[in-house]
Structures are given as structure tokens and as C-alpha cells.
């Protein structure tokens, strides 16, 4: 079993939810988070500065600002990891910085509370 954690743009959430449902992933867990990446420049600010807006020029060189994001956590069997990652990338990719990151982490065990089933049976 693997845990797939995706941090994505918040305006992509509806599309992501639909795509996961279409891909056969019914259970996942979402969280409102704030984050920043390695990108040291904000594309909107750069665009504004290039068009000559003084407010944007004043913001140039600003670092460490946190942007609102959404975090989706899905636990899937090993064989589904590739498909889930592919779905998430296809839906969320715009090609600009800030699209997000996807982390794949190992999971020791999972338990369904209702029936006490463990292992892969509990997540299917």
C-alpha cells in the first residue's frame, strides 16, 4: 500500500475530485493548507512588473510568501499508484510554477474501523 499526498491549486479541486471518481478512487481525504515551493518568483508579479505596474515592481524580490493550496491524501494498493499519479498530473498540469507536488510514501498497515479488516482489504 502507498499513500499518495498531492498539494495542488485550490481552483483545481472540483476537477481533481471528478477525475479521481472517474478513475475509480472513491475514498480520499482533503485538507486546506498553505504552502510555498522552491520557485522564488511569483509569475503574476513578474507579469505585472513587465507590464509596468508600480505595485508589482514593489513586490519584486519578495520571498517566503505562503499561498493557499489544497492537500489530497489517497491510500491505494501498490498497483494503482501509477494510475493515480498520472490522473493527478493530467488534471492539475498547467505548465506554470505553482502547480504543486505529489509525494508517494509507504504505508505500514490500514484498518477499517467498522469491520477491523486490515491490509489491502480495508482500502478496497
Amino acid at each position, binding site marked *: 500500500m502507498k499513500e499518495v499526498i498531492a498539494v495542488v491549486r485550490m481552483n483545481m479541486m472540483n476537477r481533481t475530485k471528478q477525475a479521481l471518481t472517474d478513475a475509480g478512487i472513491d475514498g480520499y481525504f482533503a485538507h486546506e493548507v498553505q*504552502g510555498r515551493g522552491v520557485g522564488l518568483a511569483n509569475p503574476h508579479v513578474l507579469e505585472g512588473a513587465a507590464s509596468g505596474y508600480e505595485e508589482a515592481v514593489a513586490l519584486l524580490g519578495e520571498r517566503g510568501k505562503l499561498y493557499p493550496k489544497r492537500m489530497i491524501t489517497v491510500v491505494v494498493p501498490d498497483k494503482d499508484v501509477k494510475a493515480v499519479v498520472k490522473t493527478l498530473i493530467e488534471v*492539475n498540469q498547467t505548465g506554470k*510554477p505553482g502547480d504543486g507536488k505529489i509525494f508517494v510514501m509507504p504505508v505500514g498497515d490500514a484498518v477499517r474501523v467498522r469491520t477491523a479488516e486490515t491490509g489491502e482489504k480495508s482500502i478496497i
Partner: protein
Amino acid sequence: MIMVRAIVRPEKADDVLAALMDAGFPAVTKFSVAGRGKQRGIKIGEVTYDEIPKTMLLSVVKNADRDFVVETIMTAARSGKKGAFGDGKIFVSPVDEIYTVSSGVCETATGEEA
């Protein structure tokens, strides 16, 4: 690659974020959580507070940077010189694969592009 998850005091979160930025680890995700620790919350008079607000910081770094990042977070999140109950915890867990959505690039556990 490893994921470092740190639960810190909300008022210390900005200090930790600044310390990480200065140390060259800009990429962080932050969210609010509530919890209690070994001290079973805080007891003030008759009332016990066992859902204490905290901030969770999440960062994925290379294996080699692990000790340095943990040390940086720990120093920045500690209250006073000695620290106090409630300063938080840091958890480290392995990450198998990392994908950047904008480019679709995959990095493996060792930090190489695959």
C-alpha cells in the same frame, strides 16, 4: 527523500519558516491542527484543555539534509533556551517518489530524476 513533519506552536511557525528559508529550504506546506501530548493537555484550575491549537509544517528534503533540517526546525521552534512542554514534535518518514505537477518530472527516493 524523506518527509519531515513538525508540529510546532502557532506563534513559532513564522520563525521556523524564516529559519528554513534562510537555511535554503524554501519549500514548506503549513496547516493548523489541534492536539495534546504526553502531559495530557493543560490543566488550569478545574478545566483541562486537551485540544491545544498547533501548526503542522511539512517539508520533503534529501536524506543527506535530514539532520540539518531537523536541527534548524528544533532550534527555531524551541521557546527560550531550554525549551518547554508544548514546543512540539518532529516526525521523519520515508518518501518513495516525488512528482512535480507542472513539469511531470519524477524524482526517486535517492533524489535522482527518473
